[in-house]
């Protein structure tokens, strides 16, 4: 609307955009919490509740952080100045405020531009400031450093133990050895359903009978050492791989053409 925008104004605009977005998020957080409380309170669980509170508190602190960034102009130094009051309804305005403000008139504006805090808040601030006035700045300074020290100490402790905790649970999770293997599953299922690795090369009937006949006795010959490990299938779980290996070798050497 006003083409010559100063740098300052531009920055303010950007900052406002950011702020609006954060506020919208916070507002959504609050309203979804209320919705949950009102409509689904039977199923609400303690962790669930904490989660909602967590969302709110992180929203608040992110707004706070935003206000403190360098990009954000000091909003303190701006006043809001109503330039147009109109009793007419403005659909654009209505849309902008989600139906809460349909006209920017003399009734709405004073409420909206109120600067006095809520009575409860005001009371609290009053109480604190009266208390603050009662102590001397020196004492206050001393207490402040004390508090800072204590809190930073506690923070350290908490961080340290939470690190330990994470480590513990992580190691616990890793402690459980794998009891099942996807590859083995796939292999076994393939064997049972399609006969993979079970099918006999020479049983297809396509081969000529001669090598078949020839291979039989040699195979038997090769397998003579087998009875030495009779309990292999039952007990020797650890020895299974070695058995497979020897067997492959046996099959290779039984091939008639490899014999010298």
């Amino acid at each position, binding site marked *: 609307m006003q083409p010559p925008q100063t740098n300052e104004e531009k920055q303010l605009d950007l900052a406002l955009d950011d702020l609006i977005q954060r506020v919208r998020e916070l507002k959504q957080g609050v309203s979804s919490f209320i919705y949950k409380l009102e409509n689904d309170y039977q199923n609400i669980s303690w962790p669930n509740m904490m989660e909602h509170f967590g969302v709110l508190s992180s929203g608040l602190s992110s707004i706070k952080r935003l206000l403190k960034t360098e990009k954000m102009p000091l909003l303190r130094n701006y006043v809001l100045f109503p330039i147009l009051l109109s009793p007419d309804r403005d659909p654009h305005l209505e849309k902008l405020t989600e139906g809460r403000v349909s006209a920017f008139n003399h009734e709405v504006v004073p409420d909206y531009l109120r600067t006095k805090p809520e009575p409860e808040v005001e009371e609290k601030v009053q109480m604190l400031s009266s208390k603050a006035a009662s102590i001397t700045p020196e004492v206050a300074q001393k207490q402040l450093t004390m508090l800072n020290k204590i809190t930073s100490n506690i923070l350290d402790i908490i961080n340290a133990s939470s690190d330990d905790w994470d480590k513990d649970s992580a190691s616990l999770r890793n402690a*459980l050895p*794998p*009891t*099942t*293997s996807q590859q*083995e*599953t*796939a*292999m*076994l*299922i*393939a*064997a*049972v*359903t*399609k*006969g*993979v*690795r*079970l*099918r*006999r090369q020479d*049983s297809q*009937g396509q081969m000529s009978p001669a090598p078949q006949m020839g291979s039989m006795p040699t*195979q*038997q010959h090769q*397998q003579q050492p*087998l*009875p030495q490990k*009779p309990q*292999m*299938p*039952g007990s020797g*779980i650890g020895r*299974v*791989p070695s*058995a*497979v290996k020897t*067997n492959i070798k046996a099959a290779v050497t039984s091939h008639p053409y490899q014999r010298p």
Partner: protein
Amino acid sequence: MEAAALAPSLKNIAPQQEYLLQGSILDTHRDVLLHRLRGLCDNAERNFEAFSDYEAVYVLRNSSTAQQSQNQHVTFRVRHALDHSDAPDHIRYLGQAELGDRSRHTLVRACLDVACSSNVRDFLTEMGFRIDHDYVVKGHFFHKGRMKVTVYKIFRLIQPNKTDPHNLEPLGQSHLVELSVVAPLGQEQIGEDMKNFAEQLKPLVLLEKFDHRKIQ
């Protein structure tokens, strides 16, 4: 495709479906699983029920169309108990396992299971079936209601047709775990029950619907 070949004869029999979940357990952890299952299943006060079966898979290929598609074949599985000589042989037909959508918790496949006399092998051979592969399974069996849980090891036969222990070679280092129910089609409650049961075995074993099409 397989089902289509059998369809006319299947029509007269009440269609039974096998609801199936599969997983595996490493051999070293098998006993933990067995005890867990014993606690969960019905036959808790008895000892583990062991089984030892020999299964041979027979295939009949359609010779006229053999060139165009390998899939044009019928598979029958013949099984008999090695440890119970008086038990009858069983012949079994299994359809293509359907994965279904997310709402279905288990694999579902057509399943025909008939007890038969011991000369069924000769009969199949006479009909033109050829043995495709065979193996021995040894393991334990549990049941809970109509759910059947089997934990077994698969053994390859080193020499054909010999099932004595010296001739067996274990496949892999795991036991296969199967949870199955054979029931008429359309009983969705079964899937729910099976899923709940499988949940109780986590994280020891992950029983899932394993996509059989992934097998190459």
